[in-house]
């Protein structure tokens, strides 16, 4: 593995602006006859400060790819570095700590803890990183105000609309100032207008200098927000384009 990384590092010049670098990434599930290959040699880069959308049909490997990028899944072969770190070469503990500090997540189903209010939900990544609760809540309230939910900080998730819940989830992804935010279908549970507002917010609030967003989506209505769009099919990146119109061709 070390030799493979060294080989790639010799081929690819050091690119400090690269947030994610994947070269020849493969991933299979199961063994023998039941073996399913989800990723078949993925080559992908995500630049710092870029919003990249990962699109493709269901089962094409998008979720597996972002799981590998996020260090949640181990890829089988190839190289996948995130902010210069190779998750595969790290222990489980190191990987978890790095993920907690450098990555933010926005999930399709929001995944807010139902018994915590909005501010407490937003504070969770800070608490995971060891910040005292009082300070974490104060910071969470600031971020909530930033996403327009300053007045709803004490509301429970069930008291918020879908759009508001997703804004809380975005605030949670931002609160610990991560370098990369991974979003899984952030608008699929929202109507068109709300989805549009959420994407505007993601672009406006999340895209500070040097922060990258990787968004997995089926929702063609939000493609316009992407800097680049990577189209996947059957475990490979088919093409990477700069605008939705190129994708259609």
């Amino acid at each position, binding site marked *: 593995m070390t030799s493979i990384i060294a080989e790639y590092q010799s081929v690819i010049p050091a690119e400090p602006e690269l947030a994610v670098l994947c070269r020849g990434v493969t991933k299979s599930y199961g063994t023998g006859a039941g073996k399913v290959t989800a990723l078949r040699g993925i080559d992908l880069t995500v630049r710092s400060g870029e919003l990249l959308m990962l699109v493709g049909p269901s089962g094409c490997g998008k979720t597996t790819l972002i799981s590998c990028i996020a260090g949640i899944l181990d890829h089988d072969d190839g190289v996948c570095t995130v902010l210069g770190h190779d998750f595969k070469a790290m222990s489980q503990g190191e990987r*978890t700590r790095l993920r*907690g500090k450098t990555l933010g997540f926005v999930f399709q189903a929001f*995944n807010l803890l139902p*018994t*915590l209010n909005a501010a*407490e939900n937003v504070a969770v990544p800070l608490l995971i990183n060891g910040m005292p*609760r009082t300070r974490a809540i104060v910071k969470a309230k600031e971020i909530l105000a930033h996403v327009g939910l300053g007045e709803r900080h004490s509301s429970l998730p069930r008291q918020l609309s879908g759009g508001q819940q997703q804004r809380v989830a975005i605030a949670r992804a931002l609160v610990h100032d991560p370098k990369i935010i991974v979003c*899984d279908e952030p608008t699929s549970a929202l109507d068109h207008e709300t989805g549009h507002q959420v994407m505007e917010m993601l672009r406006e609030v999340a895209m500070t200098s040097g922060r990258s967003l990787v968004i997995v989506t089926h929702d063609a209505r939000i493609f316009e927000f992407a800097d680049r769009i990577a189209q996947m099919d059957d475990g490979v990146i088919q093409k990477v384009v700069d605008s939705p119109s190129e994708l259609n061709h």
Partner: protein
Amino acid sequence: MNFVAMRMLIGDRLKYLSLVAGLAFAALLVTQQASIFCGYALRTGSWIHDETCCDLWVMNDQADFTEANKPILDTALNRVRGVRGVLWAVPMYRGYLKCRLPDGTQTTIRMIGVDDATLMGAPAEMVEGKTSDLRRDRAVFVNFDQAKDGLELKRADPPRPLRVGDSIAINDHDAVVAGTYRATPEFFWEPVIYTTFTRALTMAPDERRTTSFVLVKVRPGVEAAEVAARIALIPGLKALTNREFTDMTLNYVLKKTGILVNFGLTIGLGFLIGALVSGQTLYTFMLDNLKHFAALKAMGAGNFAIARMVGLQTAWAGGIGYGLGVGGACITGIIFSRIGLAFEMPWQIPVMGAGAIAFCCFAAAAFSLIRVIRLDPAVVFKG
């Protein structure tokens, strides 16, 4: 993360309450039933402990508990008095006799005859009358509580307790209630009536052997065990201290009655049901929260942090459930004591209850934790 763990646990009120209720139920059953068993077990020796006047009980070497009807030769009294180290020794009669109350009610009683001259072995705490009243003609003492329950005149109109001055017939011999006494409740339930040794023998059926026990006081500075060993050299006799006599009676009751099996089953089933209910509730709680744990793991919470959260949730629910359960058992105990039912909670019972609840919680937490630790955080991306 402790805060998050607590909010996850307490925030879902219904699940939290059912979890705590399951654990409280288990703790209540285990500690309450164990305390009732303990109360009954201790009652087997309460008569022995009420007789505080003597150091040794001399009895037939085949006697195996307080109620054993195995008298000794009357000559044994003088032989015991002749043993070195004995300060004094007095005879005692104890046997089951028939009793007819003033209203015609018939019942079985335990008659105790104490030494005529010294009245050693008579009840220590008199409610009505005084100990010397036992020397009056045909005098007997009845238990104050049993006079209302066991010796009450059920057929009288209206029904009333047996009172001082009432005439009763014991084995067709007239007797008069000259006093009432208070004694620690016993395991055996027949009413106990005291009279003098000689009078008891006139009421009891004729037998060659009439002495049930010889009560012995040892000389100051002499070990009771030493004297007991010397008495045991007399053929057909054994001498036991209060503690030894109590233990022998308890062993007999545990072996010969179903009390140990019955209470053991109740305690065991209570523990099992409580453990299953609470374990299942805790496990379900963890399963319901799996997606949240997965999200926490994805966001950077390590397995140790997750294990600590589960541990805290379990310990909190276990602690509250245990407290409520033992509190409930204590309230039961207060009520039981007021109505005269057996209940005794030495410190070992709450400790045992804590161990049982800790085991339930640990087992449930371990099963839940295995699921949570094995949980692939990638499931959060599966919608």
